[in-house]
């Protein structure tokens, strides 16, 4: 847990482009909220490795969103089922259902459909919000955080040594 927190601070406090961090987290949200062994996650993995996004942020985000997905599954099921059984959309689903690629994607499973739709809708807003948050953090909060008593206390314990060792490795 300490290592993970140290990694997060390392990422936030580094000189990494905020877009790379936010895109990594947005992709982590997409992969984490939807069932991991889904076809679209192969594409996500390709994008994560090919685009210069922050891998630590992606891994941390994946862990967080996978945990969150368990809590949100009933909600995703509800969204997915409502969408898949909506009369006006039936013709679209029927076309997709007759395609091998979409069948392998298991789009007709309400949890897959619900979570994918939810993450895709949130993808761009989430990316922009996180990007702006990282910029603001670095501009306003980082220096304040460094001066806080809490940070001073943290610097004195094991956690800070882990953080330092990671910094040296950079």
């Amino acid at each position, binding site marked *: 847990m300490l290592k993970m927190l140290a990694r997060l601070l390392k990422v936030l406090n580094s000189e990494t482009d905020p877009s790379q961090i936010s895109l990594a987290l947005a992709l982590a949200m997409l992969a984490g909220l939807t069932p991991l062994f889904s076809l679209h996650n*192969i594409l996500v*993995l*390709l994008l*994560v*490795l*090919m*685009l*210069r996004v922050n891998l630590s942020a992606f891994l941390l985000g994946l862990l967080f969103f996978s945990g969150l997905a368990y809590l949100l599954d009933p909600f995703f*099921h509800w969204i997915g*089922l409502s969408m*898949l*059984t909506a*009369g006006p959309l*039936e013709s679209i*689903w*029927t076309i997709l*259902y*007759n395609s*091998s690629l979409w*069948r*392998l994607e*298991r789009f*007709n*499973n*309400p*949890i897959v459909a619900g979570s994918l739709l939810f993450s895709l809708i949130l993808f761009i807003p989430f990316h922009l919000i996180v990007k702006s948050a990282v910029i603001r953090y670095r501009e306003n909060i980082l220096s304040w955080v460094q001066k806080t008593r809490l940070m001073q206390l943290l610097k004195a314990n094991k956690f800070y040594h882990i953080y330092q060792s990671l910094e040296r490795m950079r």
Partner: protein
Amino acid sequence: MKKWLRWWGIGAFVSLTLIIFGLWFFFVDSLVKRTIEDSGSRLVGARVELGRADLSLFPAGLSLYRLQVTNPDKPMENAVEITRIACSIDLTSALLNKITINEMTLDGVRFDTPRKTSGKIKQKAATPTIKKKISKALELPSFKLPDVKEILEKEDLKSLKLIASVRNDIDREKIKWQKRLKELPDKDKLKDYERRIKGLKSIGKGGFGGILSGFGELVTIKKELEKDLKLIKTARHDLDNGIQLLQKRIKEAEAAPVDDVRRLKEKYALSPQGLANITKLLLGEKIGNWTQTALSWYDKLKPFLERSGVKQEGSDTEVVKPLRGKGVYVRFKERHPTPDFLIRKVRVTRIETRIGALSGKLQNITPDQDVLGLPLSFVFTGDSIKDVKSLKFDGTLNHIVPEKSRDSINFSIKGYQARNIILSDSKDLPLSLQKGLADINLKAGLSHESITARLVSGLTSTKFSVGKPDATNPIVTAISSAISDVSKFNLTADISGTIRDYDIKLKSNLDSVLQSAVKNLAGDQAARLEKGLTAAITKKAGGPLNEL
């Protein structure tokens, strides 16, 4: 652009994909084995074990070795054990996320094989689904003459209760009348009337005024006398009624011992009518158990015949539960509809049974018969079975329209050399069929929930054996002798009702044989019992009856 691209990432992706594929290839067999064991155990309700699984991609196929399915009712026994299962999988269907097995071959199928370890698993208590119709309550009648003393010790005599009740009524009436008599005019009252009437004679001497007052007194006396007379008349009427009622009750009490004798005789004496359906008593439980076992397995197999789906109103969309796992899938109209799971053909090369090896085939195993439009059919035959001339077991399980499902099963054995089959292990009548040549035909049909089945069997050259019967009992001896002479035995079993509440009717020529064999002896035995009961009950009830 360069700022955003990580070219080595493509290499990493390819390497990672290869590693994942390699790991999958390395572990897929264990994964398949585990999946089959877990899902199978959950479905059967007892441990399902697999020796080894082998999945190949080119050509696409799956081989399973040593599959053991524990009998949930007998955890130390496998319901079925299969040496090898080989299937060829349709890859085109797999791309559509469907499982289609074009052909499956089963080698070395054996039933009821022993297990080294228990196959019991922890499960939620299941609700009883199939009601057992034939219970242990059906027992052979006792062939011994029952002891009168023992009967009277455990039976309540209604006559004694009735006599005691009449005695109470008489006592109550006595008390009531003692009270009532006190309310009626007695001797003193009559003397008072005498005195008052004599007094009237002297009043006449007192002139006109005296006469008038005398007349008034006379009217009063008359009214009082009339009132008292009415009281006496009513009392007499009530007394007559009470006596009549008590006399009736006494008559009933006098007849009660005879009723007791008749009731106990009917209960304890062996009557020829009691043996009218001895076939049911001998074979009913066995046939009931077979039926129940068959229906329990049918219940377990039902999810493989039809899927529980909810059709959306006014559309072709259907929400269905997958066979295994959790969650639901929504199905839409397909251009070329095919089932999600289908085994087109199963070839069973060898099924080891107690009587020999069978072979057969099954077609169209799918929970989506409505999509396929074809029913499941099967046929098994055995032509070179020891002691059997020919055997055929075939049927169709039609669930194309689930709410109008129609299943039919036919089973026939010709020329079966039956040997040493225990028909009854009753202490009084241990009966077995030593030998016989049997032809057995079973036709069973299941229309949705209602079941009809008829089993007709005919045995010739039969030889029955009655274990070690009680030789001192003439009825058992007579039955033994009659059964020993039976050289032809036919049995018809009719099962009807619903799968949860069915009735079994059995008929055979043994019924009439046994009925005529014991007719006279049973009559003598009943007469002796009646005599004993009459003497004992008369003795018990005689004293209290005389006191009434």
